[in-house]
């Protein structure tokens, strides 16, 4: 099925996400000059399938060649480091920007965002829409805080969670508890939170790795399990029921994994994007790598699984490339 690719010319990819509403849309957050300085670009991309009769159809299957076509793009003042689709409105998505702002976009509109929130004092590193409760989203920032937002809440963020010291790279919602999420950061720690906890204190906090923890994601089928990746060159699998007990570790490898995502179709697989310029699929039961996509020619920073086609993955990286490919999910 590969090569199925798109180039975000002039902008280095940081994040790519499939739409939760249709298999025809995906979006990428990218930044000029490797994200160090300059503008950001949010690209809305449409995927179409060319069948053997060479006519375009509206949906793609795993075995048909896929084309990625640009539908829309929006440029921002500062770089963009993450994005998340609105779980309630199919045309909306949010982006996380280097100037501390978060934008809400409607893809039926051509230029400006429909809302913009500027509260974080530093780069917003991640945003994630709550996919169970669907009304709220999280942002995590280099200013050390995680913020909870609700778009109907006009005054700004609903709550701020400030316990990390240093950059909070990722905040991710629990798939089971609508009020719970986990965060990880530069301070090497992992924290579990509840939006219901008094005074916004974390439920649990533990040293996760021997260096910065850059990515975190929850197992969608075993909701006590989550995975983290770190600049200590390892991936660790955690169980919230036994946080100080045994942890499973893969690695250390040569290069850190920058982003890790559990598969929406199976409890056993994670997709990773890393500084080794590859996107890979791992079986968490034994730490074996079941698939490697090594077509990128620069660091791979973004990765996401399709919600419609088991095993379909999108990746993006500093080579300005977005790739969509299929990975087998063996039993």
């Amino acid at each position, binding site marked *: 099925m590969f090569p199925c690719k798109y180039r975000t010319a002039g902008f280095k990819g940081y994040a790519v996400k499939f739409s939760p509403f249709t298999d025809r849309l995906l979006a990428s957050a990218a930044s000029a*000059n*490797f*994200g*160090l*300085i300059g503008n950001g670009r949010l690209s809305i991309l449409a995927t179409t399938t060319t069948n053997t009769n060479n006519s375009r159809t509206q949906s793609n299957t795993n075995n048909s060649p896929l084309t990625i076509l640009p539908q829309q793009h929006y440029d921002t003042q500062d770089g963009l480091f993450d994005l998340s689709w609105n779980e309630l409105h199919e045309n909306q998505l949010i982006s996380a920007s*280097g100037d501390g702002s978060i934008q809400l976009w409607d893809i039926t509109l051509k230029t400006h965002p429909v809302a913009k929130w500027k509260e974080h004092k530093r*780069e917003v590193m991640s945003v994630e829409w709550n996919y169970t409760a669907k009304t709220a989203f999280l942002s995590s920032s280099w200013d050390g805080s995680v913020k909870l937002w609700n778009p109907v809440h006009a005054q700004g963020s609903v709550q701020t969670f400030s316990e990390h010291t240093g*950059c909070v790279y990722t905040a991710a919602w629990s798939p089971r508890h609508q009020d719970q999420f986990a965060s990880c950061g530069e301070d090497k720690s992992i924290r579990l939170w509840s939006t219901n906890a008094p005074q916004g204190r974390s439920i649990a906090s533990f040293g996760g*790795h*021997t*260096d*910065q923890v*850059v990515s975190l994601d929850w197992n969608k089928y075993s909701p006590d399990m989550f995975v983290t990746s*770190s*600049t*200590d*060159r*390892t991936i*660790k699998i955690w169980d919230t029921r036994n946080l*100080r*007990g*045994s*942890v*499973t*570790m*893969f*690695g*250390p490898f040569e*290069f*850190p994994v*920058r982003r890790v995502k559990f598969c929406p179709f199976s409890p056993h697989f994670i997709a990773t994007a890393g*500084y080794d310029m590859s996107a890979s699929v791992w079986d968490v039961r*034994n*730490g*074996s790598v079941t698939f490697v996509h090594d077509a990128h020619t620069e660091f791979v920073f973004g990765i996401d699984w399709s919600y419609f086609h088991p095993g379909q993955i999108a990746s993006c990286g500093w080579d300005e490339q977005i790739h969509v490919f299929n990975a087998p999910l063996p039993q």
Partner: protein
Amino acid sequence: MASFRLTQVASHLNGTKAPRTQIGVQSPDDIIIVQALRTPITRARKGGFKDTTSEYLLGTILRGLLERTHIDPTLVDDICVGNVCPPGGGATTARMAALYAGFPNTTSVQTVNRQCSSGLQAVVHIAHAIQAGMIDVGIGAGVESMTQFYGPQHKLIPDTISDEVMEAPQVADCIIPMGLTSENVSAEFCIPRSKQDAFAALSHQRAARAQKLGYFNEEIYPVRTKIADKDGKETEIIVDRDDGVRPEATAESLGKLRAAFSADGATTAGNASQVSDGAAAVLLMKRSRAKELGLPIQGKFVASAVAGVPPRIMGVGPAYAVPAVLKKTGLTVAQLDIIELNEAFASQAVYCVETLGLDINKVNPKGGAIAFGHPLGCTGARQISTLLTELKRQDKRVGCTTMCIGGGFGMAAIFESEH
């Protein structure tokens, strides 16, 4: 700001690599111990194994390991056996023992001699061979029949040694009898006889208590063997306990013994390790392999270190080897839950406990070689079985085995229980 972002990316690429083996962390490539098992230890020439040969002892414990773990013997690639005294380094008798135990001839066998640490070195050799990918599954073992191969009539040092070699510094120290090295440690570090006797009595008390409460049951594999009475008549017996333990020993009673190695010395038969017979074996493989084979995991091998020290005070070895292995793992002494410190002599054991600042309650909680004996090549493997079962019993995690080594060395290893 651009410079901060650049620094951040650089920090990702320069992050400190995590250690491959960590306490509390399970990795598919961890070297794990399925089981560590030992025979009872008996007094040389007088105890239950006095008419038992070393290949029978070793063969029996290897058989016991197969029986207890249910592993298919054809899966074992290599067996490394530590032993000190036997002729030819015990290489042929080790091969015989493996075949007797039921291993096919496709299972290789080797022996190793690092004196008192041979059993541990054997386990470490197997661990390293698995890590390096040379083998998949291995057994590290140790055996010594000091009845058969130790004593004035047996030569461990040749009659003829080159004069030129003997004149080099410290070379003559290599043939100082072990008891005299103990006296050197006593004198040089001012360890009074009373402290040594108190330590020796503690070893007996702890071992006696452990025997009474059945703490050794899990690590001991009983041995069916024959014993001859003074008329040469043979009877079959089952040996299932260490017979060197003296529950009635006290510091006072031990204080009455005469110095054994020098006229006004402090080392006696009572505060030195006993001369003994015994064997032990440890089954190792990667965690991923154990999972594939459906085998239980008793513990994990974390790290090992060896340190050289002056031969004339060889007893100080652990005081150097333990810090070396702690440095490798980033652990501190306080993080060790149990320490199996071989009691070659009370003098050096006390010296090491004090120098390392060990909590005496964490050292040899089931007693040590002074109480139940030190079959030379067996001890290093034996300590692992004693350590892992005790970590489980106390519901603790991190343990260290260590010993001094004749010739001037110390060796230490860290294990984590996975009960």
